[in-house]
């Protein structure tokens, strides 16, 4: 990350902290949201939404109009296949031999049978597709606290732990090392393409959420946190029951 961005972020951080509420009920909500930088996050979120509306969404609609479905799937498959090595690194770091085996099998199948990953032969053959990132690895290693919620410019919802994970994954990706050594622009191009395809996959869901939410920011935050929590709990071998155990008790006949 370059210096300007770091500088800007720390500036926003200073002006962007929320005030802790004094009301005990509101304080409970505040703590549950785990979002002390909410004002700053909302600014970045607003920026992302503007980018979505004026640049990304029109680009994606154009991409869908011009590039046929089958080719888009091929591009997605190809890029996903190139992510398998860094997934494998994380599966190994998580001591998850089963996932490591599946990822290796998937990579070999799709690379050799699926024409360099353009066809997802592995899924047709019933090989699962675990995704393993360094944010999860940190959690498996014992970093239980995700740290506060963060909205990253263009990349969207994250946490301190997951942002670190994102950085480490970008740095440790074996495919990236190879591409970078050939030509740095190959690496940049791939990063951009990855982001674009990921965004394309999320696009419709995001539009649906936005349309149906009275506070899109809060909806995204809640869903991201819950989903990530489940992913991490599953990897840590904790039961899903624990997560769903919030208070759902109300008097049956209260009017």
């Amino acid at each position, binding site marked *: 990350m370059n210096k300007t961005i770091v500088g800007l972020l720390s500036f926003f951080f200073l002006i962007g902290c929320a005030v802790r509420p004094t009301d005990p009920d509101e304080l409970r909500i505040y703590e549950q949201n785990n979002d002390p930088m909410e004002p700053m996050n909302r600014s970045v979120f607003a920026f992302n939404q503007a980018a979505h509306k004026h640049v990304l969404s029109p680009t994606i609609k154009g991409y869908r109009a011009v590039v046929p479905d089958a080719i888009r799937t091929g591009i997605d498959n190809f890029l996903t296949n190139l992510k398998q090595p860094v997934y494998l690194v994380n599966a190994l770091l998580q001591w998850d031999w089963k996932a490591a085996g599946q990822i290796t099998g998937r990579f070999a199948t799709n690379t050799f049978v699926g024409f360099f990953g353009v066809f997802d032969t592995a899924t047709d053959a019933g090989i699962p597709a675990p995704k393993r990132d360094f944010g999860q690895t940190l959690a498996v290693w014992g970093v239980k606290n995700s740290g506060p919620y963060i909205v990253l410019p263009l990349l969207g919802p994250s946490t301190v732990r997951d942002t670190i994970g994102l950085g480490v994954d970008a740095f440790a990706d074996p495919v990236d090392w190879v591409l970078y050594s050939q030509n740095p622009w190959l690496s940049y191009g791939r990063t951009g393409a990855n982001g674009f395809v990921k965004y394309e996959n999320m696009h419709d869901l995001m539009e649906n959420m936005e349309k149906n939410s009275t506070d899109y920011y809060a909806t995204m935050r809640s869903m991201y946190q819950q989903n990530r929590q489940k992913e991490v709990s599953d990897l840590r071998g904790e039961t899903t029951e624990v997560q*769903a155990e919030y208070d*759902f008790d109300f008097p049956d006949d209260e*009017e």
Partner: protein
Amino acid sequence: MKKVFAFILGLFFMPALAKAENPAIEFVDNLADKVINTILVADVSRDEKLSRFRKEFTEALDLKNIGQFVLGIYWRKATLEEKDAFLNAFMDFTTKTWADRFDMYQGQKIVFTGVRNAERNQFYVDSTIQNNPPVEVIWRLKQKDNTYRIIDIIIEGVSMAMSYRNEYSAYLQNHGGSVQALADELKQKSDNFKWSDQKE
């Protein structure tokens, strides 16, 4: 002694309990079948689909309890009129939201993998939607007078009730805690409802 008694009682009731585990799955299974066959894949107009969906949705979900849960701390502070206005708008809008979401159904199968008992007559029915990648869906049910009502749907760890609760808390915090304002906002969204692929 109490424990022993409970154990013996438990032995007697075990077959009954084991059986009682099935009705919860059966309830969700039947519901899913009904929604898929008479609504999602049925060859009827979208307005007709919406009205059929509204009937199933309001019968199967305990929307009143859910509505109460999602308002959280603001439920107690709201007046009777505000509660009514909110519940009506919430029911109407969530019906449309989910009719729209279910409308994207593309023939995926749903497989039930088990049921877990929870406290206070509640059950979790575990299921997987055979999508690529597969989606894990947990149905949280409450049993009352021999019938079940859905009180939450948890998709890949995301509880819908919890998400609504967090969303509305944020909205209310930014609107002076006015449940009426939230009800008006929901009503307005509901009145302006459009199906997803009918934009512009």
